[in-house]
């Protein structure tokens, strides 16, 4: 395996994209909070909203910068590591990658500097517009990337060129791929979950420590309310629609996600169990009978094919990991709804501030949406295997033949080292901003001496 170049190309892309996406999901999740607070500050003039926006804009700036610098390698890796794929599909997926740069990145990048550092210079109205521009840019960028991914999951709008590569047949069909629309709603709702959990966690921290209590309560209120709403959206209707889409377009992936080897009606959903691919069974399963049939096709009696119904060379290549990723995502998603429902209920009863145990849970819960988002993407991408473009082009055909396994491993190690240090500095800077608090003017350490 170690001298298999294809394997290291996959690991490098998986590692760099997973690491990268930790940042944009928070960017996209926080962006609309900033817009809302800037708007309320503009309308009501209440200082609390202004302070909230300023603290989160600073955190947003650090987060955005890491998102930018880890994102640029992603685009280049299509050419460096996946030349076969680029040659085959560049005419189609190059469209959305170029559109992302041209439509979304120019919008975000024009306003990000002004959003983070320019509120004095721009004045409240233009500064609000800057926040709006960044928010729209970041969500637009998400859409273009999801269209790209949707094409790989369920290709639409393409035709074959004379040399066998793909070309655009209908830009409309390609851009409005139903998979993309549903995946976008599901993914953006999940990004909002990440953002609201982060805000709720900082709120809980401020209330628990006793300083910045007023800001803490504001963050708790917004974080839990939006968190409940977004967690519900992730499950229904977006997650439900996504699962139905997988059932229709990638039945083998659905079977592997549920560890289902035999076909038949009244398909169960598995709550606990470990897939045993060698014996073609689930070990120690705990199941809900009929639920999978119901969730995938709307009736308990629908026939849900198991992996046995498909030739083995079209099975996802890592069934165990796919199964665990899917169950981690779905399990965490359910827990998020419960947690945020309890928190919102306590808020409505006026008891959230005094429920210290719940505040502890909220404070420590913020990493889990990152895990759930990552697990969700692992489900999507491993479910797609062994295809790079579902049904058209296999992953094995896509990598750069000119690049050896050693070179790929070398750059992978380079990324790992660089990203480790980057992560440390990121946590240090964000942690510093959070501990410094929202109420005081200026950045941490700046004191009251004004510009340095």
């Amino acid at each position: 395996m170690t001298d298999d170049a294809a394997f290291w190309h996959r690991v490098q892309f998986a590692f760099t994209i997973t690491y990268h996406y930790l940042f944009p999901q928070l960017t996209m999740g926080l962006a609309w909070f900033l817009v809302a607070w800037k708007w309320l500050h503009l309308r009501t003039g209440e200082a609390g909203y202004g302070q909230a926006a300023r603290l989160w804009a600073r955190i947003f700036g650090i987060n955005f910068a890491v998102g930018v610098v880890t994102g640029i390698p992603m685009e280049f890796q299509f050419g460096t590591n996946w030349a076969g794929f680029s040659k085959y599909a560049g005419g189609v997926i190059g469209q959305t990658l170029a559109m992302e740069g041209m439509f979304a990145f120019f919008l975000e990048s024009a306003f990000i500097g002004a959003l983070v550092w320019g509120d004095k210079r721009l004045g409240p109205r233009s500064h609000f517009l800057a926040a709006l521009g960044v928010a729209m840019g970041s969500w637009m960028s998400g859409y273009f990337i999801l269209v790209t991914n949707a094409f790989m999951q369920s290709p639409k709008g393409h035709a074959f060129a004379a040399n066998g590569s793909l070309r655009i047949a209908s830009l409309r069909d390609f851009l409005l791929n139903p998979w993309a629309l549903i995946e976008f709603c599901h993914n953006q709702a999940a990004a909002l979950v990440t953002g609201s959990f982060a805000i709720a966690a900082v709120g809980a921290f401020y209330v628990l420590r006793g300083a910045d209590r007023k800001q803490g309560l504001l963050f708790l209120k917004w974080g839990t309310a939006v968190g409940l709403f977004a967690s519900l959206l992730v499950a229904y209707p977006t997650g439900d629609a996504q699962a139905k889409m997988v059932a229709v377009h990638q039945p083998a992936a659905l079977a592997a996600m549920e560890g289902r080897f035999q076909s038949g009606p009244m398909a169960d959903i598995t709550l606990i169990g470990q897939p045993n691919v060698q014996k073609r069974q689930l070990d120690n399963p705990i199941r809900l009978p009929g639920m999978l049939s119901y969730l995938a096709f709307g009736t308990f009696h629908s026939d849900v094919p198991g992996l046995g119904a498909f030739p083995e060379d079209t099975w996802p290549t890592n069934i165990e990991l796919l199964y665990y990723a899917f169950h981690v995502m779905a399990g965490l998603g359910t827990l998020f709804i419960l947690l945020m429902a309890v928190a919102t209920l306590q808020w409505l009863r006026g008891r959230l501030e005094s429920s210290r145990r719940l505040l502890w849970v909220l404070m420590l819960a913020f990493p889990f949406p990152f895990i759930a988002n990552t697990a969700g993407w692992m489900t999507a991408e491993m479910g797609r295997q062994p295809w790079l473009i579902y049904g058209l082009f296999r992953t094995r055909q896509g990598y750069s033949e000119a690049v050896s396994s050693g070179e790929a491993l070398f750059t992978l190690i380079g990324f790992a080292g660089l990203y480790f240090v980057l992560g440390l500095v990121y946590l240090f800077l964000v942690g510093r901003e959070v501990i410094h608090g929202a109420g005081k003017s200026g950045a941490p350490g700046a004191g009251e001496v004004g510009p340095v």
Partner: protein
Amino acid sequence: MAELWYAILCLMITLFVVLDGWDIGAGALHFVIAKNQDERRIVIAAIGPLWIWHEVWLVGTAGVLFMAFPQAMAVAFPAYYLALFLVLWTLLLRGISLEFRGHIPSDLWRAFWDFVFVVSNVVLALVLGAAIGNVIRGMPLKPDTPFSLPLFTDFGTRGAVGLLDWYTLSVAVFTLVCLCAHGASYLALRADGEVYRRAKILTKWLWPCTAFLLLLVSLGTYHVRPELFTAMAGRPTAWTMLVLLTGAWAAIFTALRSGAETRMFFGGCALIAGLLGAAAASLFPVMLYSTINPAYSITAYNGSSSASSLRAAAFWWPVAFALALLYVSFIAKYYSGRVQTSQDTHHPY
């Protein structure tokens, strides 16, 4: 259609080099031009607000290359695998140093990131120049044989070449000096105080150096690819670029004499645009030139996507281009004139 996308690609690269070029140049001169934290803050504040927008032209260029010329990208990127990762990691360090330095008001913290910032900008300018040199010189391209280029071989420009040879190195050094001159012109326009004074002095040295090195590099180019100069004679686009170049030099040298900062700055922009434009016009239609046999070269015609993909993109690209300029014109007015660091919220930039 392929011609149009070749032109769009060249336009985007040119915009990247002109716009981000002044950030890179000013960044490379950071230690020379700004001696203490107050002065360094002026340099950072002159670059800070829009550097990401400038860098997006590179990201956009990569996207357009991917969409319009996937064959060219699929050959060139693996061939320059390790060099490209050097660029990506350097871009990462440059971005991080610019964005992180302001967050902690400590001299040690800032001195560290300033150092990272200077080194990454110098490396970027050199690698960018070497890349342009490689495009002009060509690479050992054979049909259907993926290859990867060594860092250097015998420093010759024929046959089995490496990434670096005497020619590509000379282009790299020229690019560094030219971008430094461009960056100094930018700071002469935007900074005040000591930074302004030093920027003015540096332009007086750097632009003549650029002119001298350009002469050497042009002689080198004539030695490596003489046919480019004969091709130029038959191409009106190349003539306009040469006119632009002449005008640019006239603007720069009269401005050096009279001290007109705006004219010098735009002269520098026109110079870079003219150089890249002249190179692009004389290279056309070849994108990746084969040093083994020119017939193996990848051109805008045999390296492009099919016509339907190019046509589809021709509908949306102009809209996106216009919007990109609209956004920046909205924000740039807040940052025009000489840098006033007291205007920025909190402390950084």
